[in-house]
C-alpha cells in the first residue's frame, strides 16, 4: 500500500536518474530548479512549521507528547555538540555527529515499544537516547576505552556496528527468532544511503522477505557517504528498491519528527501483525562532517547545506508548538537549563572515564576460555611484572 501511495508514484516520475537519456542539459536544469530535498515524501509538518495532512499517515499527539519529542531532539543535539567539542579538546579520538538527523532518529526511536529491538549503525545517538541508554555509554568507543561496552539486552539496543550494513542481517536473524518465539515484538534496523549498496543490506532484504520477518529497515538517506553523493549509490530512489524484494517502501521527510514517528509506527505495527518487513527511507541531510576527521569543504558546496538549514527539524517543531500555544517560554528556558546540565554531565563523565587496566586486552575473547589466550595472558603479565621494581630500561 505504501509503495503505491500517490506520493511514491509522483516521485518515480520525477526521478531525474531515469530521465537522463533525454538530454544532459535538461536534466541538469531540472536539478537546479528543484534543489536537493524537494522530492515527494510523507510530510506532516512543513519546514515552516505548518501542520499538513497525508492520506496514508496521520498522528494525533498531545501537547505534552510534542514537547517530549522536542525535548528529545534538543537534548540529543546538545549531547552531539558536546561530543564534537570533546573531540576538539582531545578528550575523544573521533566523533560521528548526527547533526540534522534528530527528527529521523527521535521520530523512529519513539515509535518503538520496550520489547522491540534496535540494531544501530554508529550514528544513532538519538535512538540510543530514546532507548534509555546513558549517552555517556556511547562515548567509550570514541574515547578508545572500549568497543561499545554496553549490555545490548538491558535496553534492547544492540552495539554500534561500524562495518556498514552488517547489522541489518543481525536484525533480520533476530526478527526470525522473534517469529519463532511467537512473540509480537519487532526489530528496527538502521543503515544509511552508503550502506544501501552493501551486499549484506540486500541479503537482509531477501531473507526478511522470504521469512516474512518482523523487521523494519530504517534508512537515513543523509545524501552523503563521506564524500560520495547519493548518485554514486543508486539511480532509483532508495525506498523503491523494496518493491523488487517484495515488500513496501516509503519515503518520509527525515527532518519531520511527526512524519518519521507516524511512518515508523505504522511499519512496526505491520511487522507485528505478521505482514513482514518495510523499508523506510528517511530523506534527510548530514549537516556536519562524516566524522570529526572529515573535511566536507573538499567535496560539497555551502549552498547545499544552507538550503537544508532552512529545513531544520528542531526549528520547525518549535515554530509549530509556539504558533499552537503548545509550549510557553518557561518550557524552553527549562529545557535550555537541562541541556546545560546534560553537557556538564557528559563532560564530567568522559573526563573521568578510566583507561582499562592493561590485562583487559585478553578479557572476553572467549566465553569458554582458550589455551592460547591463557598462555599469552600469563606471558604478558610476567612481562609487565618485570617492570614492577622500577627497573624499566
Amino acid at each position: 500500500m505504501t509503495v503505491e501511495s500517490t506520493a511514491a508514484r509522483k516521485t518515480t516520475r520525477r526521478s531525474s536518474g531515469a530521465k537522463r537519456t533525454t538530454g544532459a542539459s535538461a536534466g541538469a536544469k531540472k536539478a537546479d530548479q528543484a534543489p536537493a530535498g524537494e522530492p515527494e515524501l510523507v510530510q506532516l509538518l512543513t519546514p515552516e512549521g505548518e501542520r499538513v495532512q497525508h492520506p496514508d499517515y496521520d498522528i494525533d499527539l498531545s501537547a505534552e507528547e510534542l514537547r517530549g519529542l522536542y525535548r528529545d531532539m534538543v537534548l540529543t543535539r546538545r549531547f552531539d555538540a558536546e561530543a564534537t567539542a570533546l573531540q576538539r579538546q582531545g578528550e575523544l579520538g573521533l566523533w560521528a555527529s548526527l547533526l540534522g538527523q534528530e527528527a529521523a532518529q527521535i521520530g523512529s526511536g519513539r515509535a518503538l515499544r520496550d520489547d522491540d529491538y534496535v540494531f544501530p549503525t554508529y550514528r544513532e545517538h538519538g535512538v540510543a537516547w530514546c532507548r534509555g541508554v546513558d549517552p555517556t555509554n556511547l562515548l567509550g568507543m570514541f574515547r578508545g576505552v572500549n568497543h561499545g561496552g554496553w549490555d545490548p539486552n538491558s535496553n534492547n539496543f544492540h552495539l554500534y556496528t561500524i562495518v556498514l550494513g552488517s547489522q541489518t542481517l543481525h536484525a533480520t536473524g533476530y526478527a526470525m527468532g522473534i517469529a519463532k518465539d511467537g512473540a509480537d515484538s519487532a526489530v528496527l534496523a538502521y543503515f544509511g544511503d552508503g550502506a544501501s549498496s552493501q551486499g549484506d543490506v540486500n541479503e537482509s532484504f531477501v531473507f526478511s522477505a522470504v521469512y516474512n520477518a518482523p523487521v523494519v529497515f530504517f534508512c537515513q538517506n543523509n545524501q552523503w557517504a563521506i564524500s560520495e553523493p547519493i548518485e554514486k549509490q543508486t539511480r532509483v530512489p532508495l525506498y523503491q528498491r523494496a518493491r523488487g524484494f517484495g515488500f513496501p517502501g516509503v519515503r518520509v521527510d527525515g527532518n519531520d519528527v511527526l512524519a518519521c514517528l507516524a511512518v515508523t509506527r505504522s511499519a512496526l505495527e505491520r511487522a507485528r501483525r505478521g505482514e513482514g518487513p518495510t523499508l523506510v527511507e528517511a530523506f534527510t541531510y548530514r549537516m556536519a562532517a562524516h566524522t570529526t576527521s572529515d573535511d566536507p569543504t573538499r567535496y560539497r558546496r555551502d549552498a547545499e547545506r544552507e538550503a537544508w538549514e532552512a529545513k531544520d527539524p528542531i526549528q520547525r517543531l518549535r515554530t509549530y508548538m509556539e504558533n499552537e500555544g503548545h509550549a510557553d517560554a518557561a518550557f524552553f528556558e527549562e529545557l535550555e537549563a537541562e541541556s546545560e546540565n546534560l553537557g556538564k554531565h557528559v563532560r564530567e563523565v568522559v573526563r573521568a572515564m578510566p583507561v582499562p587496566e592493561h590485562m583487559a586486552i585478553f578479557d572476553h575473547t572467549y566465553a569458554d576460555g582458550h589455551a592460547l589466550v591463557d598462555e599469552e595472558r600469563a606471558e604478558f603479565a610476567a612481562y609487565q611484572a618485570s617492570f614492577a621494581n622500577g627497573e624499566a630500561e
Partner: protein
Amino acid sequence: MAVQKLPLAKALNESLRKALETDPKVVVMGLDVGKLGGVFRITDGLQKDFGEDRVIDTPLAESGIVGTAIGLALRGYRPVVEIQFDGFVFPAYDQIVTQLAKMRARSLGTVKMPVVIRIPYGGGIGAVEHHSESPESLFAHVAGLKVVTPANSSDAYWMLQQAIQSDDPVIFFEPKRRYWDKGEVDTEAIPGELHKARVAREGTDLTLVAYGPMVKTCLEAATAAAEEGKSIEVVDLRSVSPLDFDTIQTSVEKTGRLVVVHEAPVFFGSGAEIAARITERCFYHLEAPVLRVGGYHAPYPPARLEEEYLPGLDRVLDAVDRSLAY
C-alpha cells in the same frame, strides 16, 4: 544402540539429530539442508522430523546465512550453519571475522555467540574448482573463533555435540573425503575434551602431527614405515584453535623428530605455527628441524592433478626419511 559402526557422515547426522532432540534452541540452517538433506546428506531426514522451523533451507547467500545466524544467537538460539563447500565460505568471511568472532569482546562479555559453522573441506574427491580447499588457517588466525576438525566417526559425533554446546563460535571442518569411512561410535561414552589432541598411534622414532583427512594418511604412513623398522607416533590434533601444544610437546620430547602434515598450503599454514612453537618448547630435544608436508603455493589444481598436489603416503614417507636422515 550405544555402540554402532557408522560412516563419518552418518555420525554427524546422528549428532545433529541428538542436538535437535536435546535442545529446542538448536536450529540447523543452510543451503539444501531441508528436503534434500544437504548435498552430502549430513542433514538427511532432519527437516522431516523436526520441521521447517528448525531445519531451515535458506536463500543462497552465505553472508546472509551467517549474519542471520548471529541475529538468531542474539535472540537466544544456537544455530548450526552449513556452508556447502570450503570454497563457498568467503562471502560469509566478513560476517565471521568482523562480527561473529568479535561480538563477545565488543560487548565486554555481555553476549555470547553459540554458533557452529560446519564446512566440508579438503580435496581428494575429484571435484571442480572451489570444492577442495582447506582454509582452516584463515579462521585459526582470528581471535574469538575456535576451529576443530574430526578425523573419525566417534569424534565426528562427539565433537559436533561439544561444538554445539559451546558458547563460543566454532568453525567445524568436516573431512569430506572421509565422509564414507566407517568407525565405531559409542553414543553413551563420556567424550574427552573438545580441544585436546589424541595420540592415534604410539611410536618412538618420529612424531607425525595431522588432523582431519590427513590422520588416515599418516596412520597408513606409520604402518608402511613400521615395515621398514621405523616406529612412528601419530598425533591427531582434532582442534586447530586452540591447539594442544602440550600433547605434541610430550610426543616430540620422546621422539625428537616432528613432521606436520596438512592439505592446506604449507606457506603460513598451521604447520608453520606448530613448527615455531615446538621449536621454542623442545629446542634441546629436537634431533632434526621440524618439517612440513602440505599443499603448494598455487591455486588448488584441477582434479586430474590433485593427487600430485595433496600430501599422499609417498610424500609423507619422504619427509619422514628426510627427518630421520639428520
